[in-house]
């Protein structure tokens, strides 16, 4: 694995120098510790492909141009094995040994949490695309920027939607009963915190609040409770295994909750694995190729998907994951910032990133004081007859939400 990643890096380096000499562009080196092995490997590779694809597209579009010169990106990758302590060590290696001045993020909130103190200490701007936990943005980090929406927003539209439906049905949002079952890990707990806050704002009642164990294989106990207290909205978040177990047992136990919202539906491939049982379930996503965003480099979201599949044929038969799209967006942020800063000085680049305000195929990007992106909403998709259709927020919806859920 390591050998290949080195060969890849060397190969990429050679390729980029070859092009650079052809186009007379200089090279800007970025660094990234990313999970190529370990439990996050699948998504780590998605993110890396997103980075590489964006670099290629920017190169094809003439590179980064400022001060009468042009530049291309090159990324030095290391494999962090999905482990925090390893990630922090590698970040240091990138900065102190490879003299990297700008960083792209790793995969997952946990890894970003481990690396951020290092980049912060050295004052290295890091644009990350895969760490959504809010706990990243209350530490006062100045050099950390995230293009994705924070995790408490994942299911916010589901809560709003449940409130709207209650009003349509002649009740008030305050009558809505919410059941929450999330895994006991930082990411999912953040989702829970978000749902709790939104529900409290609308005056909803939390009737079930359970934490799923990490080695979850059976949640009948929770679903039995759901049957008894009959909530109006059931929220389950527990990575792929949470989604898989939930969809399977919801189908088996004939849970008739009118609205069910999950995360990681695509990763667990619930439509492929459980077919009809997954119908009418709501799924949170950072990005959907059906959205109407666009930019001059990648075109529209739909075009991004087509081009990406052409460049990486192994994605031909599946959906391009949002992890890839946001990784590409992170590289794009760097390009934009370098051009506005018109300098290679990392402080100037940092200030330029902080002032980012752009429209991309991935959505708007504008950073708050804390470094998270506040210009892009999360979207909610519903599985309708096996297809993922955007149903909320209403500004982006391509289909109407099916409510209440059909129970077969």
């Amino acid at each position, binding site marked *: 694995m*390591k050998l290949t990643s080195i060969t890849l890096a060397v190969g990429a380096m050679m390729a980029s120098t070859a092009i650079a000499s052809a186009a007379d562009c200089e090279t800007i080196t970025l660094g990234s510790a990313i999970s190529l092995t370990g439990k996050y490997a699948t998504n780590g590779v998605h993110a890396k492909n997103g980075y590489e694809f964006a670099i290629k597209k920017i190169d094809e579009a003439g590179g980064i141009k400022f001060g009468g010169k042009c530049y291309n990106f090159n990324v030095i990758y290391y494999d962090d094995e999905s482990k925090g302590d390893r990630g922090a060590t590698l970040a240091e290696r990138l900065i102190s040994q490879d003299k990297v001045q700008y960083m792209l993020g790793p995969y997952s909130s946990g890894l970003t949490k481990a690396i951020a*103190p290092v980049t912060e200490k050295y004052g290295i701007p890091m644009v990350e695309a895969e760490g959504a936990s809010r706990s990243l943005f209350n530490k006062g980090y100045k050099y950390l920027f995230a293009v994705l929406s924070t995790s408490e927003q994942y299911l916010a539209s589901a809560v709003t939607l449940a409130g709207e439906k209650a009003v349509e049905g002649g009740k008030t949002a305050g009558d809505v009963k919410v059941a929450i079952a999330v895994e006991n890990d*930082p990411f999912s707990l953040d989702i829970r*915190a978000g749902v709790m806050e939104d529900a409290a704002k609308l005056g909803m009642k939390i009737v079930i609040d359970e*934490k799923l164990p990490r080695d979850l294989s059976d949640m009948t106990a929770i679903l039995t409770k759901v049957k008894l207290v009959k909530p109006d909205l059931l929220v389950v978040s527990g990575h792929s295994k949470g989604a898989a177990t939930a969809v399977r047992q919801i189908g088996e136990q004939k849970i008739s909750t009118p609205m069910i919202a999950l995360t990681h539906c695509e990763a667990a491939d619930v439509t492929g694995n459980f077919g009809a049982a997954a119908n009418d379930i709501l799924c949170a996503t950072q990005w959907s190729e059906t959205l109407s965003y666009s930019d001059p480099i990648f075109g529209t979201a739909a075009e991004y998907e087509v081009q990406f599949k052409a460049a990486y044929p192994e994605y031909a038969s599946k959906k391009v994951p949002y992890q890839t799209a946001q990784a590409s967006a992170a590289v794009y942020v760097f390009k934009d910032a370098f051009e506005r800063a018109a300098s290679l000085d990392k402080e100037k680049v940092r200030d330029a990133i902080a002032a980012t305000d752009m429209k991309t195929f991935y959505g708007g990007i504008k950073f708050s004081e804390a470094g998270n992106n506040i210009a892009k909403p999360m979207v909610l998709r519903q599985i309708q007859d096996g297809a993922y259709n955007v149903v909320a927020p209403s500004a982006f919806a391509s289909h109407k939400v099916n409510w209440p859920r059909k129970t077969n």
Partner: protein
Amino acid sequence: MSVQKTGLYAALLIFIVASPFVFPTFGVQLGTLWLMIIVAMTWDMTGGQMGYNSLGNIFFYGTGMYVAALISIALVYDVGEYTGASGGGRYDFTDAQYFTGFVLGTIGAGIFCALSAFVIGYVTFGLRGPYFAIGTLGVAIAAGELVSNWDWVGGGQGITLPVYPGDLDEGKIFIYFAYAITGVLLFIFLNWLYKTRFGAAINAIRDDEEKAEAMGVHTMRYKLVTWAMSAFFIGVAGGISAFQLISFEPLESAYQTINLGIFMVVCVLLGGKGTLWGPIIGAILFQIFKEVTWNYFLGWQWVALGALIVVTVVYFQDGLMGWLRTTRPEWFGLTVDERDDDAPQTAAAAGEGAK
């Protein structure tokens, strides 16, 4: 002490002090190496010297982490508020607050762990053989699960501690010396302890508990005190570890039963049970093995590690020291007759052997 031995110890001490400056790029690994040495030596106190094979010593490591973190937070902020602030709020620590928190936290962690060893030991020391191992393992697993459900200490989110206030490299050296000082103190303490009556008593418990009892050894008291002393040092090491990791959570970093909890046992078996230097050598060998496989057998490193455990336990249970003792008895001198000289001789011989 002979001249030779004094020289050896002095050389070792210089090496210990100099190594973080000589190998600055390995700062983190060197700190972790000390952690392994400490936990291996403390495990050997009960496992090797007293014959009680605990699989739950990781309980004290995790508890130490939590106690140290909670003390250092509680000195400045309200804990519930601090851990509950996943969404907003910022908490800064001044330099003075950081260091007071560090010192009080790690020592407090040690004391708390020693006390809890008394309580847990009172129940589990009635168990013999594999039941003691299973029982202590149960305690560690249960503790991890309960802490992960306890919102006041952050639940499954874990705790994020403040970063070292000074320069990053300086922080690494600070952590290294915190570990190294604990380790050296532990070594000096054990070197003395194993030569006393107390050491003889716990060895007697290992060899035959019933007979020891019949000889008038208050076995329960000895067992509890030994475990409490070992728990104190693991607790301190855990506390330092909390400040090293900065951000930790209950199941995978604090109460990591199947990682560090087993590694410490393997270290001891690798080096040789019931010897002063065995655990140290074992920890060094284990750490090297781990780093090498992690670098060159990526993906298969856990398979290699499992294989190492199986091979060590099945084919090589006496460890390096045991093997040396049978193949090179002359290095150990007259170990049979001069009981008093046993440990230091062993120490010197191992030092030579290690070179």
